């Protein structure tokens, strides 16, 4: 098994599921799947994750301290195949800060940020559409 796969597995094992969280863990596994190519490019995945469930067309804002000099990828996943999810990152003045997003696909969303300044940023996660009343999501991030 190559180092990358081992790292990913280790990351996943450390945040391993208990039965109660199967849905969030499934969502997380998609987020980590989205992370895989970026880990190969040298991103270190933080072995904590964030998650919850949201109704359609509802967003949540997460406040995050980012450091200029680092590059970040935020990966969002959901286990709901029919859902469309998104994550966007704004700086403290409300300007869109991401330089790249993942192509729209079922289960994933992602945004890459190269902070122009050190400070607080807002991660805005949204369930854009879903066949379910509430949709489970998980978010992970990495830096290099």
């Amino acid at each position: 098994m190559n180092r990358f796969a081992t790292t990913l597995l280790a990351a996943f094992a450390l945040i391993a599921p208990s039965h109660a969280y199967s849905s969030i863990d499934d969502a997380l596994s998609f987020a980590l799947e989205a992370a895989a190519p970026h880990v190969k490019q040298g991103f270190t995945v933080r072995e904590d994750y964030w998650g919850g469930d949201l109704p359609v067309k509802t967003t949540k804002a997460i406040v995050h301290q980012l450091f200029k000099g680092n590059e970040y990828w935020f990966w969002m996943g959901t286990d709901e195949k029919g859902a469309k999810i998104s994550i966007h990152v704004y700086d403290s003045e409300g300007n869109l800060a991401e330089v790249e997003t993942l192509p729209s696909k079922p289960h994933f969303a992602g945004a890459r940020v190269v902070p122009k300044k050190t400070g607080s940023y807002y991660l805005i996660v949204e369930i854009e559409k879903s066949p379910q009343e509430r949709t489970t999501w998980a978010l992970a991030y990495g830096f290099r």
Partner: protein
Amino acid sequence: MAALWRSIADSMRTLLIATLAFASVPTFAAEVPQKIDVSSFPKQAKVIDDVVVPVPSEVFNVLDKLGRPNWEDVLRSDKNPVKVPADQAHIALLLGTVISEGFIAVEAENSQEVKKIGGDVQKLAKALGVEKQVVQHAKAIIAGADKKDWNGVRRELDNTLRDVKEAMTELSNDALSQLISIGGWVRGTEALTEVVGKTFSKDGAELLHQPILLDYFERKLSAMPAKLKRSELVTDVQKGVLEIRPLVGLEDGTQISDKSVREVNEVTKRLIKSIIPKSN
């Protein structure tokens, strides 16, 4: 179903999976807005209790890119094993400090010091009743130091911090968990200001601009249980956080002066002297 979600939410909190419930904001249309009105956030921010506290590796990662400081000069090397304080709040602050020291020892590529820190972490974790959660990490830290696998040691230090905090939270001791973070932040900031102060650079100083973290720590310190707030050390740390807050820039993009860097260094140095028992 509701009970299940409550259970998930509770468990997530204990796992330090920072709760994200936070402010609802207007939904987006298909086009991603280039700008959003964050002026509405302060009102909504009342419900934002937690922020994502970065792992120390994020700061050291930037420092690595800014040059090659002499980390041996920054390292607080000590041959004696750590002395365990009697007070739990003090132990928690010291544990955070020691873990941060581990990152500095990694930067200095000092195997002996990293190995000693691995043992100290285990000793302090035992005093807090969470030794089980750090044993494997401590072993991995020591093994990593032997192999000079510095990235691996960094990862283990990050994981130690996470697991020990999680364990404290699971023991319904969120306040001590916060003190571990704060202790780590204080030592990390002392080291950062020492490095940046020696060869001042605007980019280096900008790393100190962490107002949301300081506000977050201040909120957590204010909300400490009365028993912990009676600790002189906890009070000193809270005062220190308040002293530092205006020095690190109120607005994003604010330039932090050489003088401010030195002042932050003085405050953190003072706090570290109180946190590290003299016989250490």
